[in-house]
């Protein structure tokens, strides 16, 4: 099957309320949606979220990469297909190889752009074959259980959100920390959510190597399951050094963008957990490749999400989370808990207990509502004949 056109849509979907961590405060989602149309009219949707402090991509540079590099490569392929293979990595590999990698100053990898194109291709090709992604990634569980995320806000607000999560039956939460009043906030979360709740913290690289161990070890009595990205992305040996001093397990996030990052982190024995995110890691295939490396090395997994993901990335995350052998924590599928409106025909938010069912519909298993998409478009780029 041939792809004849691509539409790149930079969105601006307002949040219900702002979301804050050390690297950024957001009031809207700046997701990029890619719509690919095949010669027979079948369409597929993909999504990526460009994050300068994660992959080095901005919305503008990501759109440019999609338009000038990814689309011309896709447009040249005459016959796309996804084969049903007992090894999903092989099923996706030939299609994914058509997406070129280029280096650029200041960009770790064009992964948000790649993820958006890869997901759109997967959705389009599978819809054309009337197949669900769950046939390529057979689910190992029928229900995926999601965690809540609490932003780095004032203690009163943190308590309020923790109460909501408790009311929703959520038993795992991640709390964003920023080096100010963290202990007070975390004690409040522990008290509100109860002794059995699983609490993780995410520093988004807020600490320096010298000071991190002392500060974080001072929180260990609150029973923290792991700390995500305590220090900024850098040499994996720094993380390894910190790991040897910390009483709390380390999860890497911004340090883990590419497959090469994963190999280096494993080799340096730098962490206990990987936080995979489909947009950050460059799509489903690369996420699975990193997951495989992690599992071989005994590293535990979280399947995370970017703040502001719509139903498209949420659906892709659901498939991957259901497929992985073992996944300790899953984030995302917040939908209209965060976005004032999602773009899907049906909401796929998790429900009580953080539980959400596996998706079985064709393609990614969600239908995008064009009229909602149009409401939130900030910029559109049409790509046709090359």
């Amino acid at each position, binding site marked *: 099957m041939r792809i004849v056109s691509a539409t790149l849509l930079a969105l*601006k979907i*307002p*949040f*219900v*309320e*702002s979301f804050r961590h050390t690297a950024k405060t957001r*009031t*809207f989602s700046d997701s990029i949606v890619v719509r690919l149309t095949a010669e027979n009219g079948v369409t597929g949707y993909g999504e990526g979220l460009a994050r300068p402090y994660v992959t080095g991509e901005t919305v503008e540079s990501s759109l440019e990469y999609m338009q000038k590099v990814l689309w011309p490569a896709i447009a040249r392929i005459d016959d796309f297909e996804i084969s049903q293979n007992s090894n999903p990595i092989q099923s996706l590999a030939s299609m994914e190889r058509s997406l070129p990698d280029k280096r650029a100053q200041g960009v770790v990898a064009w992964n948000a752009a790649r993820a958006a194109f890869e997901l759109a291709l997967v959705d389009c090709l599978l819809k054309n074959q009337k197949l669900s992604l769950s046939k390529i990634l057979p689910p190992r569980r029928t229900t995926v259980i999601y965690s809540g995320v609490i932003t780095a806000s004032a203690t009163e607000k943190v308590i*309020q959100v923790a*109460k*909501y999560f408790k*009311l*929703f*039956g959520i038993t795992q939460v991640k709390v964003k920390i920023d080096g100010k009043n963290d202990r007070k906030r975390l004690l409040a979360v522990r008290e509100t959510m109860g002794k059995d709740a699983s609490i993780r913290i995410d520093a988004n690289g807020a600490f320096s190597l010298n000071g991190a161990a002392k500060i974080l070890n001072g929180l260990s009595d609150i029973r923290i399951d792991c700390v995500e990205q305590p220090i900024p992305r850098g040499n994996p040996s720094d993380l390894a050094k910190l790991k040897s001093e910390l009483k709390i397990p380390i999860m890497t996030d911004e340090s883990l963008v590419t497959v090469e990052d994963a190999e280096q982190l494993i080799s340096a024995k730098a962490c206990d957990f990987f936080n995979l995110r489909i947009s950050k890691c460059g799509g489903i295939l690369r996420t699975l490749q990193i997951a495989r490396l992690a599992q071989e090395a005994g590293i535990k997994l979280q399947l995370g999400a970017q703040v502001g993901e719509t139903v498209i990335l949420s659906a892709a995350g659901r498939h991957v989370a259901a497929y992985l052998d073992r996944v300790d924590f899953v984030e995302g599928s917040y939908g209209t*808990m965060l976005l*004032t*409106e999602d773009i899907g025909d*049906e*909401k*796929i*938010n*998790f*429900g*009580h*207990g953080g*539980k*959400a069912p596996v998706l079985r519909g064709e393609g990614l298993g969600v239908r995008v509502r064009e009229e909602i998409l149009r*409401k*939130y478009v900030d910029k559109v780029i049409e790509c046709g004949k090359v």
Partner: protein
Amino acid sequence: MSVRSQVESEYAKQTEALTSSEGFQALESGRANKKAHDDFIANVCKTHLRSPQILAFLFSVAPPESVDEVKHNMLEELGLDEEGLPHPQLLVKLAKHAGFNDQGIKQLEILAQEELKRMTSEQILYGTMKEIGLSALLETASFEWMLSHLSNRMAKFLEKHRGISKEGLEWFSHHSEVDIRHAEEQLDSIVEYVKYYQFDQSHFESILELTFRENVFIKRYFGEIALARQTGMIN
């Protein structure tokens, strides 16, 4: 603060935000164009066309002390009371007077039905029916409270700036008269509901806050983008 005064205070806050919103002020001052008026009318219709179904749900979870009152409201909404004025028909009349043709009205009914379908299909965050019922009751009652305060003003601007006749505005006039009583009764129903289902204060407050995380009036009558502008989420 009692349950009743907490709820009333929240309703007053939400109503105040609606009247000071850009959309409402543009309509009331006459600055809004015809399309803005028609969008507002369409949104009012979409919001309330399926009210009988929502009231039927509230009837099913109503405590014994308030079940007769909820039943009466539901029958009144359906036009099965002594007045015999089905409220969805009054909304259709409003749309017709605003110039919506049969196809446009059909479309409003489809959209209202789709919204109801989505509401009943999605994953539910609350763990029990009593929580869903409280949230639905709080939201339904909030509209009656707001309409009891504002429907005369809404009718006035639609008559003055959009030229809708009094006949076409019957849904509003009916609400301004009936909902003063309804609003009071609904507040009693909420107090009764909280007591009957033994919500503790913190539990009740969490559901109240969650139900009104967003301004439901601006969102439903003017849309998500208008609300986001009002709250500063987008420019």
